């Protein structure tokens, strides 16, 4: 069954059409890459699906449920989480505190409990344990007491992923430019982390990325956007050879800086 279904998604910003009747489907457990030149609408698609923006038209279905226009926190609690490219951490808090914040969803909800329930020791140790688990998996355990804003950029991205993963058994994670600006070594280790997320945790991955090499190596399927429209879809090999894609990139590359 398709875990994510996007039908006719359109997003306009005051006359400017950022996303134009996009159709998209993802199957459980796959890694899908969303690529396209600057301004193609990738981030917008991302932001609409995750609930940061409301779409102008179209529908989004997650695990069969209609999530169109829902609040971002509601969508996250259903199991669709995301990372951010900028402002991705609670930079003043330590690494550990960042992960603990992400684990919020494991707490009982309700304000009264929040004000007076912090002392439930047993729940607390359970969460500390989970936090340690996550930090270890992402290679952050040794830095758990460092101020997250001081971390090297690659580690910050990993922490961003840890925060997203810490929510209540996410079924799908959306990664916003996970390896942009990283060096070869960082890129490689992040890529293997993403593979582990898919393989060990069974989480479906949708990513937006500019690093072509990473996208080709990592993704099982790729969708190419240009001017808000889907212009190609297929396996990395198919995309590499697709002329329309090449043209779109050449076209904008010629005009870019």
């Amino acid at each position: 069954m398709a875990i994510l279904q996007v039908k006719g998604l359109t997003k306009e910003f005051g006359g400017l059409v950022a996303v134009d009747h996009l159709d998209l489907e993802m199957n459980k457990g796959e890694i899908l890459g969303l690529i396209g030149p600057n301004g193609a609408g990738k981030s917008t698609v991302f932001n609409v699906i995750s609930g940061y923006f409301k779409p102008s038209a179209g529908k989004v279905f997650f695990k069969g449920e209609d999530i169109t226009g829902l609040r971002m926190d509601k969508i996250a609690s259903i199991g669709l989480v995301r990372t951010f490219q900028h402002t991705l951490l609670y930079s003043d808090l330590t690494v550990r505190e960042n992960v603990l914040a992400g684990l919020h969803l494991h707490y009982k909800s309700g304000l009264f409990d929040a004000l007076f329930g912090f002392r439930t020791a047993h729940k607390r140790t359970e969460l500390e344990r989970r936090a340690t688990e996550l930090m270890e998996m992402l290679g952050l355990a040794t830095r758990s007491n460092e101020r997250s804003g001081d971390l090297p950029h690659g580690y910050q991205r990993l922490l961003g992923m840890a925060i997203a993963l810490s929510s209540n058994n996410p079924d799908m994670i959306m990664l916003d430019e996970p390896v942009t600006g990283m060096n070869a070594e960082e890129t490689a280790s992040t890529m293997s982390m993403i593979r582990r997320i898919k393989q060990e945790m069974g989480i479906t991955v949708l990513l937006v990325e500019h690093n072509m090499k990473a996208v080709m190596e990592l993704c099982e399927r790729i969708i190419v956007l240009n001017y808000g429209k889907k212009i190609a879809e297929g396996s990395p090999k198919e995309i590499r050879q697709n002329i329309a894609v090449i043209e779109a990139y050449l076209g904008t590359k010629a005009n870019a800086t």
Partner: protein
Amino acid sequence: MAQIIANGIMLSFLFVLFALGLSLIFGIMRVINFAHGEVYMLGAYGVWLFTDILNLNFFLGMVISMLAVGLLWVILERFILKPFRGNLLPAAIVTLGLLWIFQATMLVTAGSANKSVDFPQIFQGTVSLAGATLSLERICTIVIGVILTVALLLFLSKAKAGRAMRAATQNPDAARLMGVNIDLMSSLAIGISCALAAAGGVLAGGLFYINPYMGGPQLLMGFVIIIIGGLGSIPGTIIAAFIVGFINSITTSYLGSNYAGMLVFLAAIVVLLIRPKGLLGIEEM
């Protein structure tokens, strides 16, 4: 009737000159300039200095005052405001400090007594138009207001720097990515904004009076204008300034100036209830 309209237009332009600056500063640097009223005030004292003390021509004094105030604030921005760019609250506090410094300085140096400047002799007179007597001073003010506003609008839409500024207002991050020099934009923005506010102060000084406290009421009106027009929107600011200017003019004529403030605030609330972002507020990304 024509009197009210003329007054309305005149007041509106004074507000436009003031509020545009406030809007620009917020748009580019995301800073609320609590000291903008003092910029206005400094402009007025500036022209007084150049005209009364140095006996320069009024218009020359105005230009020099605009340049001096603009330059002063470009320097201030560079050293005092730049560290706080994007950090709304500390920046606001710093402008608060500047407010106190400028107001107290003028109080101590120039005293609290009202001063005034006059428009050049040619403008000391009136003209009859459509059954109303309009002072030449006011017409001159309107003309200058129009010139400056149009100049700014042209700059923002035609000049490369101007368009870059608009882009930076809409989305500073995207603008930076496209190669816009934010430092330059900020300096430009504050320089222009303060020069305009200073011009407003000069004109107000010529029409009304000058004292260290004249900035306060202007700042309040400025905030209301921004509320009504929508933050970050230039056309919105202009429209709102006109609305406020006319409300002021109409109520002052029929009800007295005490009630002008009240109605302006009421208008702000009405607008907020219908369109919480202001008339033309930009969509927050």
